[in-house]
């Protein structure tokens, strides 16, 4: 049984889900609805139903992972709801409750954890040139390969400061700052969440292999 009260106490759900008149403006301009068989309106419906089984099913499915977090839905809703923010909360709870491993898209959180999470923890940046390989990102084009090959030179041309101390673009984050954010990540549950993601996904993979 999922902790309904706790989930509904999440400020993102409390603030962004009042009532829905099913008008569909959110779906109308939702990029994800155009790309996936997805509707923000459906998410709202499940939330408003307050049915634990339905919510659990939703959180265990691919459905919540379709949203692209552009928040276009927030701008237009006549009831001032924001399905996108609610999705954020649901994704968090899906991971927290271990429901995410039941869906292929949910399990992909491991990939996010392994690059964005790692970047934040190790470098203090969400993205960093050294972590953007051409193998993973061929769409970055030849210019990016060239930049990677000539990182120092390029940054010198544009007054960058890559991996150096002091201020400026792509500077090396001071060690004490890194310690601080690591401390925050640990103290506020991010590291626990990452470990949980890693453990559960690996366990599921093992189960499937057996």
């Amino acid at each position: 049984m999922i902790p309904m009260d706790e989930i509904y106490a999440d400020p993102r759900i409390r603030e962004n889900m009042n009532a829905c008149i099913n008008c569909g403006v959110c779906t109308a301009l939702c990029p994800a609805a155009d790309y996936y068989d997805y509707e923000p309106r459906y998410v709202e419906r499940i939330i408003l139903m307050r049915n634990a089984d339905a919510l659990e099913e939703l959180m265990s499915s691919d459905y919540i992972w379709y949203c692209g977090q552009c928040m276009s839905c927030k701008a237009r809703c006549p009831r001032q709801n924001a399905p996108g923010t609610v999705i954020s909360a649901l994704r968090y709870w899906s991971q927290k409750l271990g429901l995410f491993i039941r869906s292929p898209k949910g399990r992909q959180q491991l990939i996010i954890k392994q690059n964005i999470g790692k970047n934040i923890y190790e470098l203090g940046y969400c993205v960093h040139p050294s972590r953007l390989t051409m193998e993973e990102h061929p769409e970055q084009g030849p210019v990016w390969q060239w930049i990677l090959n000539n990182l120092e030179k390029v940054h010198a041309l544009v007054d960058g400061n890559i991996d150096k101390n002091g201020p400026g673009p792509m500077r090396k984050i001071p060690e004490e700052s890194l310690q601080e954010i690591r401390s925050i990540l640990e103290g506020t549950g991010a590291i626990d969440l990452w470990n949980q993601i890693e453990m559960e996904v690996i366990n599921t993979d093992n189960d499937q292999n057996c």
Partner: protein
Amino acid sequence: MKKIVIIGGGIAGLEVSRLLLQEGFPVTLIEKSSHLGGNIRNYAYLFPDFTPSEEILKNYTSLPGNADLQLLLNTEIEKIDFSSRPYTLFSNDGIAISADSIIIATGYQIFDARLKEEFGYGIYDGVITSVEMEKMIREQHIVTPYGKAPRRIAFIHCVGSRDAKVGNTYCSRLCCITAIKQAIETKKLLPQAEIFCFYIDLRMYGLTFEELYLNAQKEYNIQFVRGRLSETSEMIDKRLIIKAEDTLIGRPLKMMTDMLVLMVGMEASNFSKQFAYHNGLEIGEHGFFKPLNQFNARGKSQKEGIYFAGTSIGPMSVAETIEHAQATALSTISYLKGKEN
């Protein structure tokens, strides 16, 4: 003889005046514009049976000639002195009028569609309001701003109604049936045009409204899409692209259209709001005047001798307005007679 002042020369004010004059009371009718009739003049034909609005106004053509009627056009009441009886009203031209009873029939105003920026009213020429559409229907000539006969027209329901984003959370009740009425009239004028209605709920509350809706589907092939307009944008050829969700399928829908008609809702008029504020009259949560109660005193205000008629208390159809005005006239008369005794 007791004196009565009626503020507002729309059909509510006119109907109250007519009945009170009939009963022999002298009436002062105050209208802020230069002509009588009010909002009904925006509409060429009335739902559900396409009665020309002139026929309703015809009932009041003899009124201005009545000797007991004092007609003050281009006059706005700014302040009422409630401290002594009879009450005294002060107009913007500084005229003071005394009254034993005041009937407030200040009506409604149409929602300013420019507030819904994403619908593109006032930005794209192809976007018009239902009032402008009604004008074209009256002239029996529907054209896009570029002078062509539109091939596809979309009617958008609930513009400025049921929308927290513009502060109007109530339903204006009449836009649904008006949209269907206009859609049918449009189809009659342009049989080749494709007509779509984008609605959230179709609120066909009247006895013959549902049949009109069925008829719109059956005879006029008007298409209904359940979904609210999300945004309008303009193509290079000035046609409009509208985006909505077809909520019954659950998929986004894009459509090119030549003309977009926004079914604008009814709002409490700014005049009413200010008037209420300055004179201590109570306003309901939606900005309309708040009657004493919603069941058996819909025409009475909290103050003795002050009455409401018509859409000053909320959205009403023409028939309901006239009915409400009649009821108000009746309570006013019994109030005045009661005092005389």
